């Protein structure tokens, strides 16, 4: 039991957990997926010392700060701390959405699609935006703003459908 267990959803039984986007995305069209319960770790320290497992993804924000996307947050955190880095379970701190369409992206943010992944302004809030391939994107943003962001994404999609 570590002093930071109270941060980790992984330390709580699965039936106790709910996504902050559950209500906003009820009935959402295909192509919009909820990533809120996916594992995310805030990493501080020399990012050169980060060892990635298969399936992990590290978004480097500064040379000393990164966001690690991983399925095994608790193991990842232990490993990072053993390597002399600091690591914090942000799984619950950040809500996440996957969506499709470059036009939709450009109505959400003026980040250059060619310069992803990066952190920047997104629907008037801060988000880490990742490009998967072609026109598929993921965005991670503060969970307390999650419902608002999801509503914006769905609204903009509706505008594109009607065009």
């Amino acid at each position, binding site marked *: 039991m570590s002093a930071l267990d*109270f941060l980790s959803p992984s330390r*709580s039984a699965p039936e106790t*957990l709910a996504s902050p986007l559950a209500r906003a995305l009820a009935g959402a069209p295909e192509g919009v997926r909820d990533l809120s*319960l996916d594992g995310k770790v805030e990493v501080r320290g020399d990012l050169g010392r980060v060892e990635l497992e298969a399936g992990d993804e590290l978004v480097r924000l500064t040379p000393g700060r990164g966001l690690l996307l991983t399925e095994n947050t608790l193991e990842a955190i232990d490993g990072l701390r053993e390597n002399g880095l600091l690591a914090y379970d942000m799984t619950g701190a950040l809500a996440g959405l996957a969506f499709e369409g470059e036009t939709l992206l450009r109505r959400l943010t003026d980040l250059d699609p060619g310069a992803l992944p990066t952190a920047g302004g997104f629907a008037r809030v801060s988000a880490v935006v990742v490009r998967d391939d072609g026109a598929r994107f993921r965005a991670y943003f503060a*969970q307390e703003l999650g*419902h608002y962001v999801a509503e914006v994404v769905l609204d903009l999609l509706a505008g594109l459908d009607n065009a």
Partner: protein
Amino acid sequence: MRLPPQPGELIDRSETLRFRLGESELEGFRGDTIGSALFANGRRVFSRSFKYHRPRGLLCCSGHCPNCMMTVDGVPNVRVCVEPLREGAVVTPQNVVGRLDMDFLSVVDKVGGPFTPVGFYYRTMIRPRRMWPLYERFLRGVAGLGRLDPHAGHSRRYDVEHRHARVLVVGGGQAGRAAALAAATAGPGVVLVDEGSRLCGHDLPGVEELALATALGIWEGNLVPVDCGTVLYRYRAERIVVATGAVEQPLVFPGNDLAGVMLPEGARRLARDFSLQPGSRAVVVAADEHGLESADVLRESGVAVPRVVDLREGGHELEAHGRRGQVRRVSVGGDSVDCDLLVVSGGLQPAYALLAEAGARVEYDESRGIFVPTELPDGIEAVGSVTGEGLERIVAAPAYEGRGKCFVCVCEDVTTKDVKRAISEGFDSIELAKRYTTVTMGPCQGKLCQLPSIRLYAKERQVYEASIGSTTARPPWAPVELGLLAGRHLEPTRRTSIHFRHEELGARMMWAGPWKRPYAYGEKPEGEVHAVHDSLGVIDVSTLGKLLVEGPEAADLLERLYPNRFADLKPGRIRYAVLTSDGGRIMDDGTVARLADDLYYVTTTSTGADAVTAWFEWWNAVWGYDAEIVNVTGALAALNLAGPLAREALQRLTEADLGPDAFRYLDAKHVDVAGVPCLALRIGFVGELGYELHFPSAAGEYLWDRLVAEGARPFGLEPQRVLRLEKGHVIVGQDTDSESNLLSSGMSWLPKMDKDDFVGKFALEHFAEREERERLVGFTMEENVVPPEGAQIVVDGWPSGRVTSARRSEQVGAVIGLAWLPPDRAEAGTRVEIRVDRRLLGARVTHGSFYDPAGERMRA
């Protein structure tokens, strides 16, 4: 009269569209504008002028002048000369009492002149001053543009889209197209925009073309918003090429505003684009080759042109005469010629506005008599006639004298007489004269009147145009709908992970900074207050700011930031903390818990979280302590469980020992509650036995449900405010403001002045040496009246303090509150007077808590 089909016409004669003007049903073709369709149906008067209600007809056919502004489908101020015709359109005239052909308000033109010279509202309508609201209402009724119908239900969706371009070319004429093609040879990312429809049908390889796309201006960082009707494209471009061309200028002469007086482009578009004969008998008066070419265009469409005057051959007299507002005869060079169309051209003025906005200098070019842009900033280029290239010297007179009104600005009905009068009244700079006469301030925004008015000004003041300069160019280039600029309504709203439980319980939700929080769950917040005192309540405090500070120098960082001492805080213990600024003022308050030697957990007020995080991070950027600051506000939900039954209820959900000795007041413990890992803090903001649980936000609803099932009654912000007030607890930002210092707020016990340094120490040292000006204390009202926030404390008839919080407390049995008082009135028991609704009500100063002063209940 519609001419036979010709190549290049924009109309599609196979499709007829029906529309209405007032009560009349009319027809036009697909491809017509509403203006050309009205013209085809014989309409020559399109509007009544702003002030004098003079009949006005088509002048430019390019969307520059105000003459064709009408209301279309309820939308006012539509320039019908460029508005595409659509089936079922309902068109109505504006600024008319009566009909377009007979406007009762044209009496202003006939007899109002002496009463309405330039600046008349400072003369005719200046006294008595109290009548001004009446005069203003009258004026608004008789002058103006279109009217917005408050009952017209209009709804339109506007979107904003961000785009990048390597090269953005503004203007799809010859020069613009050539520049776009040239840029495309160097690679992709070339965009060409044009405000009209001439790009339709063109296809430039490697260039993305946008027609009916108006570039509104150039902003810092090469930002160019482009108006495409219902989508605003916010372009960021590495390079911008401005190819906006030049605008035809009218001539200034008596009768120059009659219907039937047109600019060359007006005649050309009617004849070539819409196959309409612009008149039957025309006179052409031009100052350049470009204008003289109109004569050919007119003859090709069957118009008789008995007289063509080339002003380059010498100055002439020029006067137009009309009947019922339409031109019938022109006097020029000693002759009088009958005509129903007068095409005039005063040269071309570069449309430099975008370049000026980007930072270019605008200079008067003596050799050509026009204003041209120079000294373009990096990243901006200009091509084509906007640079002045290819434009002839203007030789027309600034104004031709004669009887009859001579308009310098048709938008605002400013005549040459008005400009002369302004000069004689001392408005000797162009910026002053502009504001006094309102020339260039109308719908055309100077496109047709900036140059003519400056030339007139120069002549009247006998100075050079170059010394007058031009007025500041400002965006937007063309009118833009406010809805488009607003885009979608994006209002970032923060909700806790338990938000929807509050809504489901019917709580009244309110804004608390950027968060939505429950005010109370029922009509009577007092019931929730009772629950906390008598049994058990639970409140969602997930909005609290939460920070982790970890590292070998975490303690040093906190010691230096806070007036409190933290180095001696033992792991597992909590301390109340107040953050001070370098000025010794209270910035925020909260708790600091030590979780391990190198790990601290800091809470802040809900609305202060962002500011406190920034404050911590900034100071550490300056000092460079080996410590990481991590904002975990959203990672954790927090619930405060409070009431005499708190221990028993919580014990049912956890195996941890919650006994009073095992879990003391101000302890911080890791406990599992109903399977959820929590950090439990025993603190007492609401004055009863309580545990504040901090746990993963994703488990918010689950743990809330479990606690409510154990009998905890939800309570909201309002009951919480009453409870804390009963304990005399200060709320930073409510009871303190940006100037409140630690010492006078009743917290002189808090700062450890023996520390070497902390933010605020120097100021507190100075405050300690000075006399206090005011003190924050509690009070109890004599009567059962709640003074409002800000109510004045009155001492010897003078305002001497103010109330910051006040509530009725059923528990205490009185109205209680906090207030700032002068120190000599702040002793316990002193009677003061508070001004409420013009009455002076008595109150007694109370120190400490109003309820459970020894704090036994919260330390149980």
